[in-house]
């Protein structure tokens, strides 16, 4: 029979929310590191490297995160590695975030005028020095708003980790709904909790975006 919905259920969901935040942070951190590498490949001097990175990014962006997640989960399983759901979800989300962030950042790097690169190279800076001292500091400014915006994507995507049994917010809500049968209430609260995390990020991203446009003339 259906249990009544109690305060304990909300506590359980808040625990889930904590894991959602942890998984998001993990995915964003790992994905960010990988994305930086992929971005470097995407702007490589060598055509073949650029093209290779482009194809890999296109492939990842052409597959649902859920399918990536299943492939990682079952894929690691067949090599006899018993992966905890958190690890499977973390790896899948890292792959997914890396592909999208790399493209966002590449766009920002390419938005810095080419002449800046030329000027740096004419001062005898190496490609790497020019990139780290001249191009990236300028690209960083451009990249902040869309990167913060993408964090919202990451947080929302962690809900998919529920399908491999990782008890984050969505899974917690499902479990509670299975016993209380109050879907509007349970998923409503879960939605509100997601909103409480995502909306400030969205708003911050918009503020940053506006500042960027004011700062330019």
């Amino acid at each position: 029979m259906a249990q009544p919905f109690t305060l304990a259920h909300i506590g359980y969901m808040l625990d889930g929310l904590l894991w959602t935040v942890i998984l998001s942070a993990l995915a964003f951190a790992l994905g960010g590191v990988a994305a930086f590498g992929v971005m470097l490949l995407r702007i490589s001097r060598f055509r073949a490297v650029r093209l290779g990175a482009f194809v890999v990014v296109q492939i990842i962006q052409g597959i649902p995160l859920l399918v990536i997640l299943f492939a990682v989960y079952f894929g690691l399983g067949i090599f006899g590695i018993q992966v905890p759901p958190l690890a499977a979800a973390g790896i899948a989300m890292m792959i997914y975030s890396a592909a999208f962030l790399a493209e966002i950042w590449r766009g920002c790097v390419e938005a810095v005028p080419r002449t800046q690169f030329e000027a740096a190279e004419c001062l005898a800076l190496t490609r790497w020095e020019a990139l780290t001292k001249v191009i990236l500091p300028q690209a960083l400014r451009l990249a902040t708003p869309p990167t913060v915006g993408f964090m919202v994507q990451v947080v929302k995507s962690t809900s998919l980790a529920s399908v491999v049994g990782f008890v984050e917010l969505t899974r917690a809500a499902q479990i509670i709904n299975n016993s209380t049968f109050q879907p509007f209430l349970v998923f409503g609260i879960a939605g509100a909790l997601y909103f409480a995390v995502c909306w400030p990020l969205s708003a911050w991203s918009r503020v940053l975006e506006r500042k960027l446009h004011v700062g330019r003339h």
Partner: protein
Amino acid sequence: MKYKFDFGALVEYWPQLLDGALVTLEMTAISTVSGLAFGTLVAIGRRSHNRALSRLCGAYVETVRNTPFLIQLFFIYFGLASAGLRLPVFVAAVIAMVFNVAAYTAEIVRAGMDATPRGQLEAADSLGMSTPQIYWHIVLRPALERVYPALTAQYILMMLATSVTSQISVEELTGIANNVQSNTFRSFETFIVVAVIYLVLTLILKLAFWLLGLALFTRRRRLGTSL
């Protein structure tokens, strides 16, 4: 330990996977058309001078954009069921998708409409065009052309997101894949194959949207520039 790949076990399930892919495309087509229509209305509502309407549309867009699709799907499917409305999973899934993608559409289309130069409105006004005429010819149509790439990218993401509806047992591609892998115990192979099918679907959609863009936007086709 060495794993022996066996894709052979999947051969007999090929027709089912293909059916699943067709269901995915069907859902995508319905949600794209309905989402565009509904989203455009929301965008217009958002720009309305009626503050209540504008606020309502804004709240809807923000709610959808800041919560996961999976939660929206559960809310609609299980919620309606608990209220006594037992919808077929396909219908519930499509409703959730339209609800979701319309919000993104609204945001994109609104940005396109906001980019209309003021002078164009004044010019249209001074030519004696009515407000609906101005909206259609001067604001909306150029806006759609302007944001077409962003819109189509969003619809491709939505096609990929249909996979999430497998969680309420819709028999689209991922749902079928789940059945196949539990029958064959070839989970990894199944999802590799399914990943490839999704890739093909993505490419097909990209091509279709590109061709559609050429057909729709004469100016872009002839000049190759964006508005």
